[in-house]
């Protein structure tokens, strides 16, 4: 592993961490698309900044780009506040307009310089180590490493200092306001941090990857936990893991690093989306099936209780009466047997004492309709679930 490789991975990891922190809050605040808007609309800021300084590396550029990002947020909110269109439409209107202005500015005035739409959107991590920061003639490392390092330090500092405030205002704006934190300040603070992070990171990894790094780890972590601190930690871990593995993937394929990091993120998200223990698709489908069987069982037991006539309780008759398919009724019958709710005698089904207790409680529940009761009740009676 050469020096440059280590540096690239370091930059990628730092960017991942720096993005994951504001990203988590954006996802929780349902403002994920704002990051996309910001990443596009900083373009005119960068272009104007370049015209003013004629220097692609000046800090003014980052400042102006961050300002454009905030302008975007303010514009979106203003349009939304007029009530003419919904928030998502407002976002969709603002950023393409700003982006177009940026593209036109470049096309008109900056054709001959190194400022290219592709570079802005896609970035190129592989070149990051070549852009060294020289202090008094001494080489102290790649420039983007320093930039993103500073941003990360500031972000972490702000996070530690205002963790409580941000947490409250994220989950309960009303409470935060009544406790005396201004939601507006926190909102714009968060937006500023996101803008600055986006700007600082886009140079190294490109606008699209910034969005991916902000949203994907946070979304993945959100599927795994409901705890904010844990979510932050998971998001950071995912980000760093994907950054490093993505780098090696790109190395192997000889393709864009930014693209392959995103692909890794997508892959991890897909895995978690399918297999997350509580909220994954498979878990949800399984739970839905279980619940369906349980409801069927309940219907079945209630049916038994309501009918004392033998012909109504014949196994074959149940198929017709409750209108289930064969397999379904068989599952339900077996489940009831396993739980000792019914007795089958000569193909005539009858309730046991336990079954009777269960049904009478169920009727109670249906009449009073208290939500909390049913799960608890099921636990009492069920040894085997569907």
């Amino acid at each position, binding site marked *: 592993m050469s020096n440059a490789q280590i540096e690239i991975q370091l930059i990628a990891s730092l960017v991942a961490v720096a993005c994951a922190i504001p990203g988590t809050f954006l996802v929780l605040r349902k403002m994920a698309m704002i990051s996309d808007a910001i990443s596009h609309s900083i373009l005119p800021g960068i272009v104007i900044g370049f015209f003013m300084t004629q220097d692609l590396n000046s800090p003014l550029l980052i400042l102006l780009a961050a300002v454009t990002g905030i302008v975007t947020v303010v514009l979106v909110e203003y349009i939304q506040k007029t009530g003419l269109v919904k928030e998502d439409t407002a976002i969709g209107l603002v950023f393409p*307009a700003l982006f177009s202005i940026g593209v036109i500015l470049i096309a008109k005035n900056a054709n001959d310089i190194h400022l290219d739409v592709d570079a802005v959107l896609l970035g190129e991590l592989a070149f990051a180590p070549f852009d060294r920061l020289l202090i008094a003639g001494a080489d102290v490392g790649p420039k983007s490493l320093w930039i993103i390092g500073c941003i990360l330090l500031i972000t972490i500092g702000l996070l530690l200092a205002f963790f409580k405030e941000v947490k409250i205002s994220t989950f309960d704006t009303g409470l935060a306001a009544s406790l005396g934190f201004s939601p507006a300040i926190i909102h714009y603070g968060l937006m500023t941090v996101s803008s600055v992070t986006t700007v600082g990171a886009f140079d190294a990894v490109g606008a699209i990857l910034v969005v991916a790094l902000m949203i994907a780890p946070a979304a993945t972590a959100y599927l795994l936990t409901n705890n904010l601190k844990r979510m932050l930690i998971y998001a950071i871990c995912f980000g760093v893991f994907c950054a490093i593995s993505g780098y090696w993937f790109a190395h192997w394929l000889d393709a864009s690093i930014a693209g392959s990091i995103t692909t890794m993120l997508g892959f991890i998200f897909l895995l978690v989306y399918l297999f997350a223990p509580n909220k994954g698709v498979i878990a949800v489908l399984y739970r839905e099936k279980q619940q369906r069987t349980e409801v069927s069982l309940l219907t079945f037991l209630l049916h038994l209780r309501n009918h004392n006539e033998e012909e109504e309780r014949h196994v074959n008759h149940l198929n017709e009466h409750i209108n289930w398919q064969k397999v379904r009724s068989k599952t339900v019958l077996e489940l009831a047997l396993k739980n000792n709710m019914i007795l089958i005698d000569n193909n005539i089904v009858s309730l046991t004492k336990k079954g009777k207790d269960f049904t009478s409680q169920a009727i109670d529940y249906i009449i009073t309709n208290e939500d909390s009761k049913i799960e608890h009740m099921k636990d009492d009676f069920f040894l085997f679930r569907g």
Partner: protein
Amino acid sequence: MLGSFAVLRKQSLLGDAISHAALPGIAIAFLITGTKDSNILLLGALISGLIGTFWIRGIVKKTHLKSDTALGLILSLFFGFGMLLLTYIQKQPNANQAGLDKYLFGQAATLVESDVWLMSLVTGFCLLVLLLFWKEFKILLFDADYTKTLGFNTTFIDVLITSFIVLAIVLGLQTVGVVLMSAMLLAPAAAARQWTNSLGVMVFLAALFGAFSGVFGTAISASQNNLSTGPVIVIVASVFVLVSFIFSPSRGLLFKQIRFIKNRRDLKLHKTLAFMYHIAKTHDNISHPHTIKILNNFQGFTKRTLQKLVDKQYVTLHGSNWSLTKEGFKTASNLYNQQSDSHE
């Protein structure tokens, strides 16, 4: 045109997501066939766009992630994957690969005749289906539950609309490119929304706005050097939106502001009148004259409001004195009891 549905369905950003999601489709189609036949590439884009859309729906439905997160996620992930494939393709020894990235930003000038034919064909087809299913689309849009109770297959209609939006986006990609496609979808519809409340008119207006911004944009970009068509079209469309926001008669900002000021002035007038009424009440004769000076203590009093009250014959002026007329007294006493006509 189809954008109207997207805007009304609160799926505006779907366009953005789909246009990004189409990129890996283009890249994969190219990898498989190795040619740059635009029809095959578009087919690939269509398929990957549809996959993206349905994955978004899956995420929103099955997990507790919100739609914005799902959109952003799919958008960036698919795009990143597409970039990976594109850079991978660039490394391949295939001379054909140049120009694939044209799809990113679009270049209307590169369109050839067959592309235009294809576009018109698809547009016509969209129009036909739209007319055919007009009633169903409309009802689903505004009251999904009701549609279900009427026995329509909502999933089918839903999928149909979504597919058409995807189709429209994929076609538009060539013209304005990935990034700006969402504006093309949204801007005309958002502008049209300001002028009307009727879906039919809105769709028609949106199509009109879209066509106009296309024509103007192309004209402007052709008249100048170095201007790519896509961004110019988007800017023109944005100007349309801005104008609509400001000047539309019932919802526009300008008229809203005027109405606001007018209301405030009315309110001030009423306040003055009420104040006069309280003074006049203490006297037996309601027309008993008072000096204008005492009104000066009162906020919101100006010469003009007084003049207005005179014009309405609520008040008469004698030199520096004023007195309420009978009519003025009556209006004032009813002011807070019922909405008077002048209230608007």
